[in-house]
């Protein structure tokens, strides 16, 4: 393992070394925590810049380019604006619940980020049940949304928070299940073991990522859709849908508390994409053997930026789903598909040691076929086209 790859690990060991014995544990914990908060907060700033420039370019306009070169200081300006803006607490609001909500929206998400391995033996906390811990922290976000909605004592924000919670709960099920499919395949809940299981290369070149297996591909797509819904991103950003309930549960917030909510949302985005990378795209592993020399943490953050670009692209294109379509999609399409994904994995595992010629192809056909047929059947069930049929337009002279 070359020096560059283990740069940060050695750095931390060096710093911890300076301290006397019994202080070591405390110092290493503090360093890890500072690293996580620092890196992801910096990533948050860069992402806001990427999002605004990306959306701009999609819409044929330059995006921010006035504040600093290429608009790079724009996140700083936004942060400053959020700090300077007056922080209004509505007079009728329940002060404690109102002020506690943004804090509760950010803290659990940062805790969840501690579990994701960022590079070769660069993980803050290697929990034996890392995956379950991650989803548990994801669950606490709903409490924060409720407190925000209920605390501000405003009909619109209450309505918005109810919708947000309903959406999060109905998409939490597919999210957790598609995560557990990978845990079933690997046999352990720890994220480090999951990445371990994706080591090695098919035919010496292509990495053994889970995404290159039929059940993995289906699981990845389902996880991605559920993650977009969980992080309230575009096709599912109903809670802050401007065209209906203006800002949903974040209606009565201004100034820094509003920025905190956004920090929470973006951290959720990093968490979800980080987990998708770890579960399906081999965490910090290189896709091809000949690219092994690039340091591991560069792979992780490279994939993370790819995910951020994808979410920005999604946000620039897709319109918003209606509330009932959202729910119908979650319960009638996502849940059955994820359960079938478990069956597909079972098929894949069961036929692992077939002796039939070109067994790999047969296994792909069997397990992948099941998922594809399920997709066609369920998609037809909820597709609007079936209910309405194609359109013909008459032309009078």
């Amino acid at each position: 393992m070359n020096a560059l790859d283990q740069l940060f690990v050695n750095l931390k060991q060096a710093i911890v070394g300076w301290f006397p014995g019994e202080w070591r544990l405390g110092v290493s914990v503090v360093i890890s925590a500072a690293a996580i908060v620092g890196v992801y907060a910096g990533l948050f700033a860069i992402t806001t810049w990427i999002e605004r420039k990306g959306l701009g370019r999609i819409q044929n306009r330059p995006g921010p380019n006035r504040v600093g070169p290429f608009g790079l200081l724009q996140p700083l300006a936004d942060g400053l604006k959020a700090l300077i803006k007056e922080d209004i607490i509505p007079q009728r609001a329940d002060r404690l619940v109102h002020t506690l909500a943004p804090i509760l929206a950010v803290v659990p998400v940062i805790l969840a980020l501690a579990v994701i391995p960022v590079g070769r033996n660069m993980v803050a906390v290697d929990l034996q049940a890392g995956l379950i811990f991650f989803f548990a922290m994801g669950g606490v976000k709903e409490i924060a949304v409720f407190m925000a909605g209920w605390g501000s004592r405003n009909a619109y924000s209450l309505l918005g928070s109810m919708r947000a919670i309903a959406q999060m709960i109905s998409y939490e099920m597919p999210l957790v299940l598609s995560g557990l499919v990978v845990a079933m395949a690997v046999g352990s809940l720890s994220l480090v073991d999951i990445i371990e299981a994706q080591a090695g290369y098919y035919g010496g070149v292509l990495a053994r990522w889970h995404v290159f297996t039929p059940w993995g591909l289906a699981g990845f797509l389902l996880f991605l859709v559920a993650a977009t819904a969980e992080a309230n991103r575009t096709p599912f950003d109903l809670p802050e849908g401007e065209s209906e309930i203006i800002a949903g549960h974040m209606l009565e917030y201004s100034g820094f508390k509003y920025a905190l909510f956004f920090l929470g949302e973006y951290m959720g985005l990093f968490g979800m994409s980080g987990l998708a990378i770890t579960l399906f795209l081999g965490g910090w592993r290189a896709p091809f053997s000949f690219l092994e020399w690039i340091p591991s943490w560069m792979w992780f953050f490279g994939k993370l930026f790819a995910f951020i670009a994808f979410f920005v692209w999604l946000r620039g294109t897709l319109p918003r789903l209606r509330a009932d379509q959202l729910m119908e999609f979650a319960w009638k399409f996502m849940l059955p598909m994820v359960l079938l994904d478990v069956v597909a994995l079972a098929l894949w595992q069961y036929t692992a040691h077939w002796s039939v010629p070109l067994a790999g192809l047969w296994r792909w056909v069997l397990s992948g076929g099941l998922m594809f047929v399920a997709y066609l059947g369920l998609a037809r069930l909820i597709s609007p086209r079936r209910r309405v049929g194609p359109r013909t337009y008459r032309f009078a002279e």
Partner: protein
Amino acid sequence: MSKPLDFDAAEQLAMATGDVEPEQLDHDAPVSLPPPGPRYEAVPRAASPAIPEPEGELLEVSVGPHHPSTHGVFRMNVVLDGEKIVQLKPVFGYLHRNHEKLGEQTTYLGNMPYTDRLDYFCSLSNNWAYALAVEKLAGLKVPERAEYIRVITAELTRLVNHSSLVGFLLHDMGTMGTPLMYAFREREKILDAFEALTGARMMCNYHRFGGCRVDLPPGWLDQVRTIVDNFPRFIDEMERLLSENEVLIARTHGVGVLPPELAVNAGVTGPSLRASGINYDLRKVDRYGIYDRFQFRVPLGEKGDVYDRYMMRILEMRESVKILQQALRDIPEGPVIDPKVRLRNFTPPVGEAYGRIEAPKGELGFYLISDGSKKPYRYRIRPPSFINLTVLEDMCRGHTLADAVIILGAVDIVLGEVDR
């Protein structure tokens, strides 16, 4: 000039429904005059269905007046039972500027710049409607070149209006303004052409009684030809955005259906009426201006829901491009205004006249009564978006709030015209 329109227009309105065998969506089918179709008897308007007994208590929500998705200052008092809309009362008048009373105190020429501000998206077609009414009142003749210029500017405003409307729909549905920016990118080119011709981008004040104010600047026709030639590329882009976007189809199919009888009874005109399948386009019915010289077709919808209304706008843009190409090809030289017309102290003979055109939003009409003085005695405007708005509640009942926003967008209202 087309034959003066006598006032049994109601007779024409009733017989104006053409029923042609359905054709696939191809753009170059041979054009043939439709036989007069079945008449739509005035079906008594169905009593609005009794409000179903609500189980939970009703939630009274007021959307607007400065809600981000009500195009302008417009409020909807919506009574919600859970998610479903039970009752929707539009409230407007926030932009009322006393346009008609003001019209009675200003001279005929002085009213022309005010018509720009009626439907501020298509000022040139407003000017044309007012000029048409005054010419009918005074019996003026308009030279050939001015007629061609009027058709070109009217069709360009139709392109502007329809493209930004489709952009606004997708914006209402949640895309962060991306299609809106594409629509505005095309709109800017056309507005630059208007500025080169009339001096202002949106408040053109260009038509005069008996022709146009100033002749085409050199090079203007080539500028418009380039715009018109690469406009279809943009329409294909928009049509692809509309037809292959699964989320959009899910949200607009079968939403806000307007039955044909209700449309006729409520006096809806324009693309909303044609989306419900009724063949009523003033350019074909009245044949005002020189529209009878151009070959173009009128698209008709099938189900009358929001998706159909938007496809109408896309198909009408294609037809406008065809008209523009023909008009640009054979625009003659010659004077742009009838020199005998007096500019100041213009006093038309006593009488009344009703001039109407197919504005992008529907039938825009000006009704003038002149008592021989310099100022009109009565100056009345038939605002198409206001009348199309009356059926908003019938379309929205039973849908959710998110749909009401889109249905309102599909009705295509501009508050300047609704409130006058």
